[in-house]
């Protein structure tokens, strides 16, 4: 074997290095120096992000099992940025007495799920894909149950692992059927063997169900609300952004590359599922009072919008999708950052608790408002542009009715996003959440999110760059 190929795994290797370093730090450094643990984690992650900012060239290793290309590397960088922001937001929560003893675990577990996603994204074979998927989900269950002495968190962990196992089982069955009918697991070779017979269709749907679980599409979404509500807020934001974003991207790669021969079938299926997903998620979101549950349904409906890029199946759809993930990351982390810090400081997560927040914490309210505007897609914030591009990519492939339905749902979503804004700015409250000062890590992360929300739309270079790389698809 040519070991030079291993250089294509630079990003994975560097991530493992970060992970091992943090693990060693956690194990061997005691006393005063431990105070710098979080700082080290953030700095290492930032360094890791920065050195891989430049997209990797095309290349493959392990006989085509592992592939890398510029657009894949861009997606990895986006995930890195999101993880870094979550690391910063998690500090406050991890510094509490009950969790500070095991905070090292949080970082190592998070990074190992990230490593799993890396492999998932870079896989050129269903085997490596499945290994990546499982590497990403098993530690995730541990993360969801991180506050294990809390009833909610433990329950969420159990629900997550059971659902994940169930989904993985179905998916594995699907993959084995694909292997059985085509005789190979390599993405490159499978399309030649796909002829659209019912067995393959069933295999495809089983595989899709597994991915649908990760992305939380209807009807595979039921775990989402309970897990999001029970998990620690930082983990919830990780689930909603990083885990979901990577899964959607991989799904698109596989659909376009592997299942190209049955494109009409999967487009028809996605058509139905997108309509169902967006509508049902919106219907549930309207009634939620708990903000974390609310964000769960919001993220389900956002997943529906993301699938619009997938259904387009074009290079434009791909760039719109990656751009959407990027924008969604900043907007959603902005919202979760605020929810997280408020939960830490006051223990409140219900919508009525947010009444009158603007009076006591104006800056947090503004961050929250702008992030919500971006999620709802109001110009000139980044969310408008990302929605615009993703709608355009779907319309470009002729899905006019679908785009129209999605647009109608955007109006519905505007209603419930504005409910929170109304609570913060208009509703009066006799005992609002007291004024507090956020820690510097949270501030930096929120400023980063705000900049992302404001600048990503206006500065088009980012979208142009993504679309340039995606044209090589």
């Amino acid at each position, binding site marked *: 074997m040519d070991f030079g190929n291993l250089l294509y795994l630079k990003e994975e290797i560097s991530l493992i290095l970060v992970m091992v370093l943090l693990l060693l730090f956690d194990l061997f450094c005691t006393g005063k120096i431990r105070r710098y643990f979080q700082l080290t984690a953030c700095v290492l992650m930032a360094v890791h992000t920065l050195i891989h900012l430049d997209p990797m060239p095309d290349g493959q290793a392990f006989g085509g099992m592992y592939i890398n290309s510029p657009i894949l590397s861009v997606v990895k960088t986006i995930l890195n940025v999101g993880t870094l922001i979550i690391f910063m937001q998690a500090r406050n929560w991890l510094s509490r007495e009950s969790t500070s003893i095991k905070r090292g675990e949080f970082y190592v577990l998070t990074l190992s799920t990230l490593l799993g996603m890396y492999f998932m994204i870079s896989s050129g074979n269903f085997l490596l894909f499945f290994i990546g998927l499982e590497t990403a989900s098993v530690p995730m269950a541990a993360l969801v149950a991180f506050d294990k002495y809390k009833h909610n968190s433990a329950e969420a962990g159990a*629900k997550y692992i059971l*659902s994940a196992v169930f989904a993985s089982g179905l998916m594995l069955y699907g993959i084995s059927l694909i292997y059985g009918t085509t005789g190979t697991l390599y993405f490159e070779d499978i399309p030649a063997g796909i002829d659209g017979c019912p067995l393959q269709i069933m295999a495809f749907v089983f595989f899709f*169900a597994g991915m649908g*679980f990760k992305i939380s599409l209807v009807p*595979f979404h*039921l775990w989402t609300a309970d897990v999001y509500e029970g998990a620690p807020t930082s983990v919830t934001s990780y689930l909603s952004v990083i885990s979901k974003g990577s899964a959607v991207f991989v799904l698109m790669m596989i659909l376009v590359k592997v299942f190209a021969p049955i494109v009409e079938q999967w487009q028809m*299926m996605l058509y139905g599922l997108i309509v169902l997903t967006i509508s*049902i998620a919106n219907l*549930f979101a309207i009634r939620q009072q708990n903000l974390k549950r609310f964000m769960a349904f919001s993220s389900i409906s956002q997943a529906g919008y993301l699938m619009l890029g997938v259904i387009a199946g074009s290079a434009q759809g791909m760039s719109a999708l990656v751009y959407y993930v990027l924008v969604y990351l900043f907007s959603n982390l902005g919202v979760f950052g605020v929810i997280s810090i408020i939960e830490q400081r006051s223990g409140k997560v219900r919508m009525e608790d947010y009444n009158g927040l603007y009076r006591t914490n104006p800056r947090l309210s503004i961050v929250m408002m702008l992030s919500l505007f971006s999620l709802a897609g109001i110009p000139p914030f980044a969310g408008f542009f990302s929605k615009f591009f993703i709608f355009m990519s779907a319309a470009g492939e002729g899905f006019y009715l679908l785009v129209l339905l999605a647009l109608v749902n955007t109006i519905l979503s505007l209603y419930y996003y504005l409910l929170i804004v109304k609570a913060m700015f208009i509703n009066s409250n006799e005992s609002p959440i007291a004024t507090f000062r956020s820690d510097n890590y949270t501030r930096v992360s929120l400023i980063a999110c705000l900049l992302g929300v404001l600048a990503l739309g206006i500065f088009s270079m980012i979208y142009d760059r993504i679309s340039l790389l995606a044209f090589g698809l």
Partner: protein
Amino acid sequence: MESAVLIFVLPMLMFMLLGIGGKYMTHRTAGRLGTLGLTVITVLAYVTAYRYFGAGRSGGVWLPQTVFHLEWLRFTENLQIELGILLDPISVMMLVVITTVSLMVHIYSLGYMKGERGFQRYYAFLSLFTFSMLGLVVATNIFQMYIFWELVGVSSYLLIGFYYTKPAAIAASKKAFIVTRFADLGFLIGILLLSFYTQTFNFTELMSGNVCASASGATFLGGSVIAWALGLIFVGGAGKSAMFPLHIWLPDAMEGPTPVSALIHAATMVVAGVYLVARLFPLYIEAAPELLVGIAIVGAFTSLYAAVVACVQTDIKRVLAFSTISQIGFMMVALGVSGMGGHAGLGYVAGMFHLFTHAMFKALLFLCAGAIIHTIGSNEMSAMGGLRKYMPVTHITFLVACLAISGIPPFSGFFSKDEILTAAFLFSPWMGVLMSGIAGLTAFYMFRLYYNIFWGAEAKREHTPHEAPVSMTAPLLFLAFVTCFAGFIPFGNFVSSDGVEYTIHLDGKVALSSVGLACVAIGIAFRFYRQASVLPAKMATAFGGFYRAALHRFYIDNLYLFITKRIIFAGISQGIAWFDRHVIDGAMNLTATVTQKVAYCIRGLQSGQIQQYAFVFLIGTLLIVVWMVFL
């Protein structure tokens, strides 16, 4: 040429600085900061002009240069929105005009606006306007131009409504915004049509000639689509440049502070329409020469109409406003009668030249009017009279400007107006005679204004008028200086329809007749208004109905009111309002009710039991399989 990028960016930064930081500054700091920023921008603009024209022609023509280019939004391979800076003779000329007048207005406002509430806001808006106007003239593509076109409209709206506690100012700002916005609708449709058929926004590509050929096949109602698009684009230009019948906003816009009127509603923004036609001139010549004749007719009619109305107005700013409309009409006529290249292109040179000289002397007139209003406290001519003793500097500079606009040599207006008349005679003798007549009217109403303000009987005053402070008279002197000598600039060397050098020579017959006519008109004004006389009143009674109609601007505003209030609001809008309230809102309410009901009904799906989740998951998957395989 990189300095051009700074010209573009600096005003924006000034706007943000003054807009956000303004409330932490004193009036003095904000004013000085704004003026200093604009001085730098002006110097940069001059440097750019010097370098551009200093570099010389290549191949006998001034080549357009794109010194900055950014792809902003890419829709498809062909269609993308770009931002950039295009330097060519007319955009460089506009850079000089805009920065010069804007700088004068900045300095002037230090004195004029002293102590006003919202002083910092005023300077912030001035920066915003300068930014938008500069962005408009250097646009590399028609879409960028449209963006800045709207920004110019917004800043004009903000500045007209600067005294937002005055109901008249609010009404005027709304009127200006709505009327120009209405015209911009035409502009937008024109852009969409043009870009749809030519597949490009870019000016350079539009001018290259082959795009017209590729799109010439498509026709609509007998005309080619390109001609329709250009016609609609002209509607946008006519709105901004206050061409009849879209002129109604400009006289009302005089409610804004006077320096703003000088900058926006005399020198820069209102000539945006002329600039637009000049920018697309090769396209007009190639795709729709008959449209240019239409433009000339609209320009000539507007010019005549405005000149007649200006003769009877009594508010000095209104007189100047109608005079502006009339002069822009001259420029439009010049462009409309022009051909491409050589002697046929005289109109183009003349139009641009007049734009340049008019910007200077009209700004001067407005600033003088500002100085007068500042000390008198009223816009009405009857409150003035005999001011020459109290305000010598204003008097002399105003006189210079009046002589220039009347076309008396050697002031700048003579040269540019004379060329327009020559071009008009070349086009058709009728047009030449008409425009000469209007030039005579111009001389009459300007000197009517002059004599009424500075001579004639003094009105009763509570305190003696005084000359304006230095910060206000210095810009007046500078602009008067430019007005005296700008006529000798060999303008054809710099700007011509095809970029080739064009030497201007005076046509003796035209020059003589126009100067003679102007002198006669001035003589009549002298006889009528030099001293209190019964002649004007006699004339008014002699003309009777015509006089009253002119005083009421020929009832155009009333016609608009009738159409909007009686027909649109009462007739059409009521029906639409009913439809909106009952059908649209009803549908929305129905959606909301249904949503709530459905949300309530399906809540059972989310039971919290993992067994049920797995069940739904599995059944869902199987149903999809069944659906995909059997349907």
